[in-house]
């Protein structure tokens, strides 16, 4: 037996699908080059195909047809009818086919009685019915779509209105913030003006104080005279003092400016100093709120016999303590 004869022996198995892949390819190779063998196999294949066609029908779900047609369209297929329309037509045709099958088998069903009324124009009737149904479905669908669309537009309008309202709130808040900011700027500006005014007032007060000291000094000067020496202008920082001596009486005068008020329970005290003796306490005094003070005191000897003056700040309850007079506070004659 030749190899080809062995392969031909496999033809029935090939037709029945009972070969492995290798044997199947061998058969297909042979029929490509042997027309007689191909004819012999074709007869067997026809037999099996006839057998297959008679195994029986079963109605697949409509979804199978829909998927096939939609896939075909997705792969570039064209159509002359709407797929839903075709599906309905096909569905009706399937029902008609079932009717016919049942009628052939003398089965009296509803479909058979219906089928007897519909003769040659059955397909046309089915097509018209399908068209009517499709139009109805499309109208309903369009209505549903329209309602959904209106709802979406309404929702969007509401969203836009809410966005506008929020934007307005933000603008109002911004406006309020701006007003607050302006108010703050105005307050700052007023405070600046107040500071300027107070500074000017302070300067005027200082000037007035100086003027008052000068006026006091000038007034006293009519009866008093300045000793040869004067206190150091650096008495207490910015403070200054003038000592005067009455021209006819044993009186002295001290005019002080630019010195802070003594805290409660304390006072300033004036000592006159001679180099060869202990400082002599002559008077206690305090400053007014403007930092200005004037005190008159008795002199036991002419002021010209003293070498200088000494001012201390001591507890009011304590007696004068000449030992507190330090050289730093020594008033030297100019």
């Amino acid at each position, binding site marked *: 037996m030749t190899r080809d004869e062995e392969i031909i022996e496999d033809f029935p198995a090939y037709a029945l699908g*009972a070969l492995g892949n290798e044997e199947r390819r061998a058969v297909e190779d042979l029929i490509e080059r042997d027309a007689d063998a191909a004819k012999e196999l074709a007869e067997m294949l026809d037999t099996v195909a006839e057998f297959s066609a008679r195994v029986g029908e079963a109605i*697949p779900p409509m979804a199978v047809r829909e998927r096939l047609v939609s896939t075909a369209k997705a792969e570039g297929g064209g*159509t002359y009818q709407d797929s839903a329309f075709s599906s309905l037509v096909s569905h009706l045709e399937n029902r008609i086919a079932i009717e016919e099958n049942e009628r052939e088998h003398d089965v009296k069903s509803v479909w058979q009685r219906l089928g007897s009324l519909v003769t040659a124009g059955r397909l046309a009737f089915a097509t018209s019915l399908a068209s009517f149904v499709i139009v109805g479905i499309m109208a309903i669908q369009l209505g549903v779509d329209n309602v959904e669309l209106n709802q979406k537009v309404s929702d969007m309008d509401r969203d836009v209105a809410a966005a506008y309202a929020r934007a307005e709130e933000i603008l109002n808040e911004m406006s309020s913030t701006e007003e607050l900011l302006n108010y703050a700027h105005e307050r700052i500006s007023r405070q600046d003006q107040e500071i300027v005014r107070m500074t000017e007032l302070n300067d005027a007060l200082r000037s007035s104080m100086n003027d008052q000291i000068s006026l006091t000094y000038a007034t006293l000067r009519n009866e008093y005279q300045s000793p040869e020496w004067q206190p150091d202008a650096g008495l207490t920082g910015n403070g200054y003092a003038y000592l005067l001596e009455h021209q006819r009486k044993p009186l002295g005068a001290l005019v002080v400016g630019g010195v802070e008020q003594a805290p409660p329970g304390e006072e300033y005290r004036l000592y006159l100093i001679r180099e060869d003796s202990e400082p002599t306490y002559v008077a206690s005094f305090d400053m007014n709120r403007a930092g200005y003070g004037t005190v008159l005191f008795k002199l036991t000897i002419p002021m010209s016999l003293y070498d200088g003056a000494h001012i201390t700040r001591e507890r009011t309850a304590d007696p004068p303590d000449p030992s507190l007079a330090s050289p730093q506070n020594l008033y030297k004659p100019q």
Partner: protein
Amino acid sequence: MINYQELTDQELLAEISEKNTDAFAALYDRYGKRVFGLAARILNDSVKSEEVTQDVFMRVWRRGHTYMPDKGKFTTWLFRIAHNRTIDELRRLRRDKSRYSDDITERYDLESDEITPPEAAVANSEYEQVRASLTVLPEAQRQVVYLSYFKGMTQTQIAESTGQPLGTVKTRMRLALKKLRVALENEIYGDD
């Protein structure tokens, strides 16, 4: 408007080659139930049968132009694709789940419920014709046809399972097909 139901298989295939989905739908309407019925009868599984049916017709859609009329009828080409695809699925299921018994006596029983899928609604009147065709075969021949065609067994597997020599299986298949051809032709002529 073209009435595709009136077109021949060849004319529909020509339209399908031009990517006409209406022609494709018409061809499905013509043979879809038979292809689905065949798959359902063998697989006894509606979902898998749907998949097979889809695969078969998508192959027609994509490769319809490869069908050559001079090598056989369109239905021969179509049902061969359908049967091969169904058998492939059956073998795959058998490998995956071993859902089909290896008991040869259970497999070979034309009267059992196993070959009457309850969910497939297969038209039993036609299957009666197939069953009748098979009954004209001697027992041994009917067995090899059943095991190969309905159960997807190869001739080698049948030989091993039944304990028959491979040559004997081949001979019985050949004789079975000859008798089957005569029986089916008689039925066809009888229908006319």
